[in-house]
């Protein structure tokens, strides 16, 4: 059910010709993925997914649609040859992946499972032991800071040219 929601709205998001509807279908697809995370009992990831993707990136995309597009305007129709070729390539890739997937059998480990609760996640994320993730955490924070500063620089640079 959740998978059907995710896949159908994903297909509609890449095929509808009204760009605003595409953004709304993308929103439903992301909510479906968050529901799959809830179903796998990874509550923290589901919450992060809803906050960052559904709350952040979709709103950012909708704002950029409003800033760059006349709402209600249809996207131009693509060449049918290109669409057929893309569908063929994508179908071949999907078939190849499925073939590999059903020929392979995964063997689960038998170790003691670690519950994905927030306390365990926090311990691991800021741990400096062998299985800690303190260094990637810091690197990702620096990357986010650099990306934000880069956005401001890119957005400010064309001000004298336009005004």
């Amino acid at each position, binding site marked *: 059910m959740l*998978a059907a929601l995710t896949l159908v709205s994903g297909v509609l998001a*890449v095929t509808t010709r009204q760009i605003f509807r595409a953004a709304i279908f993308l929103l439903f697809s992301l909510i479906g993925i968050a529901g799959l995370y809830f179903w796998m009992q990874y509550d923290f990831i589901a919450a992060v997914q809803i906050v960052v993707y559904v709350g952040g990136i979709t709103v950012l995309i909708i704002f950029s649609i409003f800033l760059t597009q006349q709402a209600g305007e249809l996207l131009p129709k693509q060449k049918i040859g290109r669409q057929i070729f893309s569908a063929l390539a994508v179908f071949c890739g999907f078939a190849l992946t499925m073939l590999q997937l059903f020929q392979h059998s995964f063997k689960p480990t038998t*170790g003691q499972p670690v519950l994905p609760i927030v306390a365990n996640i926090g311990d691991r994320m800021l741990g400096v032991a062998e299985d800690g993730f303190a260094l990637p955490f810091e690197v990702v924070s620096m990357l986010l800071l650099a990306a934000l500063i880069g*956005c401001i620089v890119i*957005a400010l640079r064309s001000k004298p040219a336009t005004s």
Partner: protein
Amino acid sequence: MMEPGLNHILVISAALFFIGVFGFFTRRNLVTMLMSIELVLNSVNLNFIAFNKYVWPNKMDGLFFAIFVIAIAAAEAAVAIAIIINLYRSHHSIDVENAEEMKF
């Protein structure tokens, strides 16, 4: 009806990945291409979480990779939208055919 397991999740995420790739091939608008990339990144996250749950439940590496991928995707979307809006200001269009001057 059998219990859904790892293979079902992998089928879902592969389908989502190729939906995103199809959108990336066919769309010619920068914002919709960005949306296709988001679909692809989400399918990768779904794969990480599924492998973490069903194959290595005694470690949490997949979960942390998913968190880092989400953070990097947020940064990437912000930078891409800044570039798109800047391009729209100078060209009044966000089709990729009109953005050829960005190659230099």
